[in-house]
């Protein structure tokens, strides 16, 4: 399949009178790891929700081309939607066991006999010993790992991650990064990750996009983005001098 996976054209997202995202043009390639960076409130999470087809832009078009014709949030089939999994910044787990939470998406798809996959996903995020624990008894970091396992077990073609390692200690953060990388390498999945952590973006991403005030400032290959930014605002942001 040639052509980009996502194609965004003249996208605007507004809540009431406030426009929080304005992207004239953006293409995301299939199979790449794409990082969204920028200060808090710059529109990263909004962009991820649009890419997850959970919301429809106020103006413009977000098109996803999986295997056939391009689809939008309005026209996507259930099968299209199920090719995407998103992990939110603040994971909300169901009031049931960790195992049952991870099994939830598979059950929605009518997949039985998936115990081995569920256990593999739990092992990948080091939660297998807590499989029987109730989700409400997990710490914040454990809940975040359970949410990632819940998405990884679905083996999505597109994985969207909103600050997946926020509030995690470095060891747990590395564990999650390894799981993301393993999923990408094994499945050839496209991974979009919104992160505050510039080191993480540098470690994981093939390309990086900087958003400021809901607008793209610069998008480019990771090495170029960090070593030779084209826009002075990118350089300021990377140096940590950007005050918001």
């Amino acid at each position, binding site marked *: 399949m040639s052509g980009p996976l996502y194609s965004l054209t003249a996208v605007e997202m507004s809540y009431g009178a406030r426009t929080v995202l304005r992207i004239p043009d953006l293409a995301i390639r299939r199979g790449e790891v794409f990082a969204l960076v920028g200060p808090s409130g710059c529109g990263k999470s909004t962009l991820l929700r649009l890419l997850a087809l959970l919301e429809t832009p106020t103006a413009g078009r977000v098109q996803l081309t999986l295997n056939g014709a391009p689809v939008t949030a309005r026209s996507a089939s259930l099968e299209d*939607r199920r090719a995407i999994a*998103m992990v939110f910044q603040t994971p909300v787990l169901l009031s049931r066991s960790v195992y049952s939470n991870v099994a939830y998406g598979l059950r*929605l798809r009518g997949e039985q006999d998936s115990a081995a996959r569920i256990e593999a996903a739990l092992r990948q995020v080091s939660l297998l010993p807590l499989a029987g624990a109730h989700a409400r008894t997990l710490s914040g970091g454990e809940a975040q790992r359970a949410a990632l396992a819940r998405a990884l077990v679905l083996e999505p073609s597109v994985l969207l991650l909103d600050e997946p390692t926020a509030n995690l200690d470095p060891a747990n953060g590395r564990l999650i990064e390894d799981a993301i990388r393993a999923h990408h390498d094994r499945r050839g999945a496209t991974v979009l990750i919104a992160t505050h952590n510039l080191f993480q973006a540098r470690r994981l991403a093939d390309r990086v996009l900087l958003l400021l005030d809901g607008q793209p400032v610069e998008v480019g290959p990771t090495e170029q983005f960090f070593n030779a930014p084209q826009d002075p605002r990118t350089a300021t942001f990377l140096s940590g001098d950007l005050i918001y």
Partner: protein
Amino acid sequence: MTTLINALFEAVRLVITLDPAVVEIALRSLQVSLGALLISALIGVPAGAWLALIRLPGKRLATALIYTGMGLPPVVVGLIVYLLLSRSGPLGGLGWLFTIPAMVLAQVIIALPLITGVTMSAVLAVDPALRPQLRALGATPAQATRALLVEARSGVIVGLVAGFGSIISEVGAVMLVGGNIAGRTRVMTTAIVLETRQGRFELALALGMVLLALAFASNLLVVLLQGRQPNLP
């Protein structure tokens, strides 16, 4: 005082020996109220979830109407159902007046707003961030709604028990539309009124004990279900 004590002893005896009159009236009460509860639950639980999740103009008005309905006086409901089902009423052709279906209809009208309103509140109390997460995992709207109802199950069960409590113990509506006909439409509350008026306190007290036992059992069920939560750290 002696009358009360004697009546109490006799009432206990009637309950323990499963007196046929007590059993017959209690079973009819359960038939009417459980039937009404089932119909109200089948309509009210999905309706409550739907109202909690949709965004529509007029939702606030609908919510206000439902909350008003939660406090409907049973005797007024009975009056309206009576007028609807009476020979000259719009539903008179059904021939339901002074029958079990009329009593079920009246009790559905009493329980439905209660179950709908409590379900709506329970679903609204679930973390609003859960819904997009369910959709992002591939849930259809129906699957997401089902998961949200499971999350809100404690509240939904409280609504069902409250609905049952409100109809099993009401007297005004079933008296008006059922007519308290012996062997046909007499239920515990209407029988208690009649027996008390006629000075037969022992049967009235026996039925009162059964009513209290049912109320206790349903509330115990709620407590037990709510107790099935994990031990939090």
